[in-house]
């Protein structure tokens, strides 16, 4: 029904990154095809009914799936969590290459919080796994360690600063 309402009659194609695995999804009116690397593709008729904001009841051949979009790419299906990103092909390629380049590398805040201590200075040589910065949130301290051996190119924060998840705190080169 959701597919109906969106008004398209031909299949729409998506590239999916699901729990780190790549997949291709093609959605037509009340029918979809899903092919994930290393599995044989499946094709199914489905019915999707909205069940409150961000929630759907999806029925496939009488099997009932309660689906909730939890935000931040998290999707719950009958209580099981999946991390799902939906891309168009170009964006996806861009992402993947980003992972394995070895120029300067950013150390980012893993969670919103406050910077308690900065343990490294610009220009300092650091070993892989060496502590760089301590961030605290909800009474928990988390020490950011160096992803690899290198030199501290820049420190982008200071003790006492409030940071958001993903903020660049420091750059290793």
């Amino acid at each position: 029904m959701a597919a109906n309402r969106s008004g398209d009659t031909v299949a729409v194609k998506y590239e999916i990154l699901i729990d780190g695995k790549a997949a291709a999804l093609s959605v037509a009116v009340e029918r979809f095809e899903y092919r994930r690397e290393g599995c044989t593709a499946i094709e199914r008729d489905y019915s999707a009914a909205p069940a409150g904001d961000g929630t759907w009841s999806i029925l496939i051949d009488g099997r009932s799936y309660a689906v909730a979009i939890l935000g931040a790419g998290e999707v719950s299906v009958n209580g099981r969590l999946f991390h799902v990103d939906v891309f168009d092909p170009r964006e996806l390629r861009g992402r993947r290459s980003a992972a394995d380049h070895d120029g300067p590398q950013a150390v980012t805040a893993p969670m919103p919080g406050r910077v308690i201590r900065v343990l490294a200075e610009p220009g300092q040589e650091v070993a892989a796994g060496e502590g760089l910065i301590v961030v605290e949130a909800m009474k928990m301290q988390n020490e950011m360690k160096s992803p690899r051996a290198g030199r501290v190119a820049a420190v982008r924060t200071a003790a006492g600063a409030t940071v958001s998840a993903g903020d660049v705190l420091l750059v290793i080169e």
Partner: protein
Amino acid sequence: MFRKVLVANRGEIAVRIVRAVRESGVASVAVYSEADRASLAVLMADEAAYLGPAPASESYLCIDKIVDAAQRHGAEAIHPGYGFLSENSEFAEACEAAGIVFIGPPAAAIRQMGSKTAARKLAIAAGAPVVPGTESAIDNLTNAKETARRLGYPVLLKASAGGGGKGMRRVDREADLEAAIRDASSEALRAFQNGEVYLEKLVLEPRHIEIQILGDRDGHMIHLGERECSIQRRHQKVIEECPSPVMSEHPELRQRMGEAALRIARAANYYNAGTLEFLVDRDRTFYFLEMNTRLQVEHPVTELVTGLDLVQWQLRIAAGEGLTIRQEDVRWSGAAVECRIYAEDPDRQFLPSPGQITRLTEPAGPGVRLDSGVYEGWTVPLDYDPLLAKLAVWAPSRATAIARMKRALADYTIAGIRTNCAFFAEIMDDAEFRAGRLSTAFLDEFFARRKVHEPALETEAVAALAAALAQRKPTAAPSTAPTSQWLQTGRETLLR
């Protein structure tokens, strides 16, 4: 009974206490920091008092502000909840000095038990077994090294004023001792304004079992049995239950530990509710660890099996009423399990996940009790502990309770932030957990043996389908900008 009670806490426990106060026919006063202006406790209470800025040091930890609020609102008594000032004897004294009843034990008992070393001495005097360790706080590194050698590694560093695992460190070799003392001490200083730490022999793979006691001001005291709290991460309990599986097999252990607990509490001239924590090793030898001179987070499992309302009894006892329950009246029926629902990401080393709850669907139905401090639209502040709610279930048997917990977890939807609901669902399926083979090493071992079961391809496809449908309906999901950020951070973290 009192006419008005101030609740000097926040989050789910403030809500739980406000409810008990209301059900006792008493008016309630909530307190709030800037971050908690529209908290659930403020919404539910009859009155609310502003304390100060978000940091606890400027609000929930300010004795003067809280006592002043109680006087302004004409509250006759203050319930401290757990954490914050609940085990601060100066606070208890400040209340009494201001002519306000502190709903808890006498200040002297708080002080005595507040120092772990003093508590150990008391327990030894009362003839209760304790974990081998130092009687006094560490003064210098040399002595510390010596003691550690005597006890034999691994040893455990603990904060004298501590609780909840803050200022606690396991040390496996002498080389790590100095750094561990520094970290533990500074963490303890931040948490309790007291940097004292001491050393204990580390009992390997023990169960963490605690005994709930309840006593009135006339010296009548009973125990309400045990809570098994072995499942911990970072020394924080995450799953608690009653009865303990080991007690079900060996009922006499409940009585023996209950009596030891009462001996210690009586030696401290204790009254009101309190909990004595023990370690129980594989031979069911138990060691007194410490006493928590307050209501425990996990008190609901005891309430579910005994049918007693601990908070309402705290109020009655503080108001001078006698405890009308005799030890032989206490009955333990069925089994209760509790999961602590945290705003954290179990897939990423339990990193905190504050933020706005964009949608909330809560579990209910037969045998389900939810003590929550949040609502749909609430923004979980990053300034405090990540506990959102406690999900507890009761059933005639442990097996049914576990099945019920699994069902309740599946019915629980919290959108906008990460929680550990799905993680608990996995544990409910774990063979070791179902067999009741528990120890404080449970979670480490669980992660070691954990294998993520490959979902049915159709289920996975449904997840992808829904994500695609959601993209077409902008209202359904938050903007995906944070998504990429999170996931990228996630991947990098995992690379480390």
